[in-house]
């Protein structure tokens, strides 16, 4: 198992290096200029050129790339070209918000999605199944910015239970919970939709297995058959989907952060892109890559937890 983790982390380093190099060159090939963003649209060409020189953007790409690599290896990710603040500091200042949002919605999505999927499977082709399928289809199809606005209209404007701006100054536990509620529900609905669908189909498959029929035949109570015997065996696809869709969750968290005005990685990367903030983009991409790599690793390890037959080599 340790060897497995080390091997996977080794791959991760290679992946990171490749992604970094690719990003480094892609952002620089894009037209657009951070110097212009900094100086504004009244700046003369000469002052833009002077700032480009100060930022080191006038050097040959290869030199810039080597400087960047050396810095990165030494843990120096540079400073944001636009704000002048350290990239790592900027990312770390908002990373907890994104992690908090993602984990809470993941949790909500699973505790909503798994029972709903089981319920649908057990009642196959009956009303609960149809209803679940329609609702989860809605969850899959409604973009996060649409469902977000709908939630705001219902809970913040009509009912006035929650504030529209989910980034309060109230840092108490209840304050944070209130800020988190609507964005987390918004993301959780999407996650729940995926989880519901995959749980339903996995459960349907398992319920058709011989051992389930045997258990039922010998009079095991229905609840025990489903939750103890069948559930465990349909967890593998569910975990796969959770791992895979965590990426989608992070993507949707960009939109959710924007709609609910929460701080987070999503807003940071969108800002960096429109400002052509090369150093910031590089730092962000590394973080995203790391997250995806780690999630994949955790997903693989989770297989072993639910299924002792899984071997790590």
């Amino acid at each position, binding site marked *: 198992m340790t060897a497995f983790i080390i091997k996977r982390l080794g791959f991760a380093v290679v992946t990171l290096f490749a992604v970094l190099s690719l990003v480094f060159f892609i952002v620089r090939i*894009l*037209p*657009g*200029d951070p110097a*212009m*963003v*900094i100086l504004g*649209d*009244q*700046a*003369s*060409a*000469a*002052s833009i050129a*002077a700032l480009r020189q100060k930022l080191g953007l006038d050097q040959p790409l290869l030199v810039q790339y080597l400087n960047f690599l050396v810095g990165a290896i030494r843990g120096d990710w540079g400073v944001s070209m*636009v*704000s002048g*603040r350290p990239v790592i500091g*900027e990312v770390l*200042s908002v990373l907890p918000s994104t992690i908090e949002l993602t984990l809470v919605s993941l949790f*909500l999505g699973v505790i*909503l999605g798994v029972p*709903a999927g089981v*319920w649908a499977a057990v009642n196959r082709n009956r009303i*609960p199944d149809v209803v*679940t399928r329609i*609702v*989860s289809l809605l*969850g899959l199809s409604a973009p996060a*910015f649409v469902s977000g*606005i709908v939630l*705001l209209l219902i*809970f913040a*404007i009509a009912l*006035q*239970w*929650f*504030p*529209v*701006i989910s*980034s309060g*100054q109230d840092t108490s536990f*209840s*304050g944070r*919970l*209130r800020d988190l*509620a609507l964005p987390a*529900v918004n993301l*959780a*609905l999407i996650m*729940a939709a995926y989880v*519901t669908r995959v749980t339903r189909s996995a459960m349907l498959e398992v319920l058709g297995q011989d051992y389930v029929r045997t258990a039922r035949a010998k009079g095991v109570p229905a609840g025990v058959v489903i939750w103890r015997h069948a559930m465990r065996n349909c967890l593998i696809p569910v975990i796969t989907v959770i791992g895979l869709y965590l990426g989608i969750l992070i993507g949707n968290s960009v939109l959710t952060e*924007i*709609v609910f*005005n929460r*701080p*987070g990685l999503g*807003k*940071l990367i969108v800002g960096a892109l*429109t400002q052509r903030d090369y150093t910031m983009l590089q730092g962000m991409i590394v973080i995203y890559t790391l997250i995806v790599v780690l999630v994949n690793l955790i997903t693989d390890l989770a297989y072993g937890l639910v299924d002792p037959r899984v071997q790590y080599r």
Partner: protein
Amino acid sequence: MTLKPAILSSLVLGTLLSATALNAQTLRVAVPGSDMGTLDPYRASATLDINVVNWLFNGLVRIKPGQISPEMIEPDLAESWTTSSDGKTWTFKLRDGVQCQGGYGALTADDVVYSLKRAANKDTSSFYAEYAAFDTITASDPKTVTITLKETVPSMLGLLVPYHGGNIVCQKAVEALGAEFARKPIGTGPFEFVEYRPQQYVKLKANEAYFRGAPKIKEILFRYIQSDSSRDLAFQSGEIDLINGRFEDSWVKRMAQIPNTKVDILGPLEIHNIHLNMTQKPLDDLRVRQAIAHAIDRDAIVKFRGTSISKAAESVIPGGYLGFAPIPLLKYDPAAAKKLLAEAGYPNGITIKSIQTTLPAMLTTMQVVQSQLRAVGVNLEFTLVDHPTFHSQIRQDLSQLVYYGAARFPVADTFLTQFFDSTSIVGKPSAVTNFSHCDVADDEIKSARTAGDIEKQKALWVDAQKKIADKVCAIPLYEMGQPWAWTQKLVFDYPVKGSLNLSPPIDETTQLRN
């Protein structure tokens, strides 16, 4: 199934958690955008940054609060000033009792000298070029600042209002804070910086020691809310008192329906022009440019953008700027357009290649123009790019036709120089935004700068506008201001026509009534 528990949990949370009471004297502001860039006044050029800078700093002089015309200049940090007869030596007498915020001590003439030198230095200022005519800046005693100029400038006092390089900082604070100054600005203005939370807000508090008196509003919470819908909803739900709006007719009308809300369009106006590259075929032919001007129906475009936020342009520079005058522009006349094209040797029409931004408001306007041009046989081709790319490529002279909207310091010289003086032609090292390669009014623009006498200056600026319009360097479309809405609890002590820093002037007199 998935919704029911969600609603339940919301219900529980909603009843458990009570709303936190905010200070009744907290003014909550929301602007579009994701985050603050810099609050260093000599670097801040983005609207949402200068919006905040507006409430933190003073200048030697200022434009009367709520006004934007440089003809309304009054004392700010300087209580009086004198000018030498040649207009090249200016002496300012500072007022007593001005304290730097944050306990950095009394403001002295040395601070003013330090500030203006910083504003004129290309390593510390984005606006250094505006101060190129400054020769020496000296403090002869703690209350006196003398500025000598290499040559007279079109609006000397205009350079010293709290806008861009005219903001005065405190030397000790800048030196103590170093790079941090951009995030923790220290000024002398009615409000002082308290806190910045990335992607969320900047918090300011009343400067109780403000030399004009302690502000009635005790706190400003300046929020960055990127999503248009959420920002509007936050205003609607009463979580925001003052909101920077969208450049949309529908926004103005919708906000006006919210009870107890005032919606206003503030200056300075920006003008939206179409610049034609006069050095490239077929646009090098005056008749072709005239044809295009005749083909464009300005009133239809205004109607399209909405009459609540826009009006037809009357010159090549925005209305209300010092030196602006309505001038005769070519009228909408498709028949004349076709005739001119035929005379120029293009009876079958022409094709013009252009780069357009995907920003919806700009793109849709150009689609209207595109269809108007098609009616007379001008085929306007679009290459669509994202907004940063657009800005970069039009400055590389890659578009035959450039659609550009801009507001500038409201003196004709700034706008004319940046858009129509040959030194600003794109591609040159001194380039700014002269996309048309216009050089027909260089003499007038240059003479006006050093004319000294204001009436003479104004006459030269009017001549320049006429010449530029005659040669169709640019086709003016429409003007629009800054849309803002605020709760009627927010009461200004004076009429608010606008502000150079594009945010309503909140000062010691502004109130938030309960």
